[in-house]
């Protein structure tokens, strides 16, 4: 006797219910109940009318695992369509990541590392920061972790680049249109609150785990939000008196954007880029679950095999990378800010 028998009787559905009796799959609970008849009577006094509970009263009623199966089937059905659209669109991302990883590893260290140091010097013009980066790289190389660190850096470089290329125009559009801003903000809030694992699952089924674009997309989706937000904010915060002056002298929207708004919003945009870089780094570690190479793989190995030393050293490498990326991008912000003389 199930609790909700009476309900179906009262509704006159008994016949429909019993039509399916016996043909349906058995749930684990009912299986257990069968093998252990004593336990069957110890259900709650007034169970919630859940799918499984109703199924007990009426075998024609679907079980909750059928709901799960239905969702899975629906996803698998749209998957092929989605894939045929997304696959070609995102293919360049795979190529880019493969290319960057290849370049960073194939080129000898005495080419790659000096180039990186030159780049650091170029963006921040700070002896202290450049020295710190040099020492950090020397240390990583000395403990044989340079390749893993370079792989991580390559992934971050590509993903941050794409975040900027996509995020800045979106941010500009948001700053220009209140309606667009209103409709996009909830999505950005969602992206920032979603735990990463939640959207890793559909991504894994959408793309194969061996493709670099899988983790590329995961990182970009996670890290793009700050660039968008701060570009929007930066442009909205540009001194309205200066914008008015631009209008007064007859600047076209394009002249205004390139000559006034973007330059004045640059420190804010750079602050967004800094956050994006840091979030990419956080995500690249998680993404090693789905085959992203680099230091994250070593961290994962440490966790999986309880190899404490491996995990600790890899963690240290990531901390070093984090400090490097943060220092360099902050120094670059400081430089554009003083160039712009906002003091």
């Amino acid at each position, binding site marked *: 006797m199930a609790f909700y028998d009476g309900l179906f009787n009262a509704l006159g559905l008994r016949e429909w219910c019993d039509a399916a009796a016996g043909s349906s799959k058995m749930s684990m609970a009912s299986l257990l109940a069968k093998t252990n008849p004593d336990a069957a009577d110890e259900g709650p006094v007034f169970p919630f009318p859940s799918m499984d509970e109703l199924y007990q009263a009426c075998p024609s009623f679907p079980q909750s695992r059928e709901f799960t199966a239905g969702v899975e089937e629906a996803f698998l059905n749209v998957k092929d369509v989605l894939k045929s659209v997304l696959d070609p669109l995102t293919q360049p991302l795979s190529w880019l990541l493969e290319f960057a990883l290849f370049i960073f590893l194939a080129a000898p260290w005495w080419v790659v590392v000096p180039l990186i140091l030159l780049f650091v010097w170029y963006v921040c013009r700070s002896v202290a920061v450049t020295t710190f980066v040099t020492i950090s790289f020397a240390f990583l190389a000395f403990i044989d972790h340079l390749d893993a660190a370079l792989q991580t850096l390559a992934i971050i470089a590509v993903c941050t680049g794409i975040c900027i290329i996509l995020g800045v125009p979106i941010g500009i559009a948001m700053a220009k249109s209140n309606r667009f801003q209103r409709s996009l903000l909830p999505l950005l809030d969602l992206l920032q609150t979603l735990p990463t694992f939640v959207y890793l699952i559909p991504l894994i089924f959408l793309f194969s785990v061996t493709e670099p674009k899988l983790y590329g997309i995961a990182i970009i989706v996670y890290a793009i939000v700050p660039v968008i937000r701060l570009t929007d904010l930066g442009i909205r915060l540009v*001194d309205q*008196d*200066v914008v*008015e*002056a631009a*209008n*007064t*002298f*007859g*600047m*076209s929207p394009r*002249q205004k954007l390139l*000559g*006034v708004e973007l*330059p*004045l919003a640059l420190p804010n945009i750079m602050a967004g880029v800094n956050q994006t870089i840091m979030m990419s780094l956080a995500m690249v570690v998680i993404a090693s679950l789905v085959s992203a190479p680099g230091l994250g793989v070593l961290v994962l190995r440490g966790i999986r095999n309880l190899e404490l030393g491996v995990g600790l050293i890899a963690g240290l490498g990531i901390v070093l990378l984090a400090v490097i990326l943060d220092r360099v991008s902050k120094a670059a912000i400081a430089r554009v800010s003083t*160039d*712009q*003389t*906002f*003091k």
Partner: protein
Amino acid sequence: MVNSPKIEIRNLYKIFGSDPKTALEKVKAGMGKEALLSDTGHVLGLQNISIDINESAITVVMGLSGSGKSTLIRHINRLIEPTDGQVFIDGEDALLLDQDELRNKRRTDMSMVFQKFALLPHRTVLDNSALPLEVRGVSKSERHAEAQVWINRVGLGGFEKHYPYQLSGGMQQRVGLARALTSNSDIMLMDEAFSALDPLIRSDMQKLLLELHVELKKTIVFITHDLDEALRLADHLVILKDGAVVQQGDPQGILLNPSDPYIEAFVSDINRARVLRVRSVMTALDKKFKYAGDVAPSDTLESLIARSEGDTSCKFRVVEEENPIGQIDMQDLVKALVPRVSEVEQRNL
């Protein structure tokens, strides 16, 4: 040419709010600023403004804070769209211009100087000054050469490579002025251009503006809340209160015959001897007298008092370009120095 004004403003209304058209009906039916705000939540910015702005003259718009001065000047280059009324520039209806025409008009025919300078902080003095030409697509060497001329003219030679933050307020406003001059437009709009400067620098800038005006004959619309500044610069003075014109005309005339207690209050505090000129006080020539000397119509009363050495019984002959055009009695002069105070205020005293 002589008679048609450079800029004509006709029955201009501006109402801020969600439904200005309905509010406009109410204003036209006689509702005041306060009543409109409390009844409908709309702000009456300007009401029924008609002003003729003459070519090559300095028209000064004066009023207290919130009287609508900035709103008015922004209608001339259409940074603000009117709720009702017309603006003609060179006889052409400025409200009919489409976006491109308007942009071209702003590029070539008018420039503006701002109270808060509004310079581009990431550009040098030279690039800031060259901005109007850059917008028009003039080549770099050409626009820099032109900008350099005006930078030198406003007295900033040597500071071309500096950034705005490296300059004092007065210097920054000189850059603002150089920028407006580089655009080489006929019309120059100045919204409280000197209000943020300290009195000495301000006086220097006024002098510079007057010199430039003699030299360049631009049509200048100048906004201020300072009567001394207004009287120093104005060929034509417009006084605004709560978005409406309370009096306009020759500044000397307004000083001698204020039409409204609001204006009397404004004019009662200034040094009239320094502002009023012989022209405004002189009477018709009456040959019977023996004159103590000849004066020019543009002399200030202050200089005349100095010449008479305080003797109120003498009379001077007013001579313009060798022709006697009138006379001035020191007793009339002394009377003109006493501000007319409305009867209400006299009773209160």
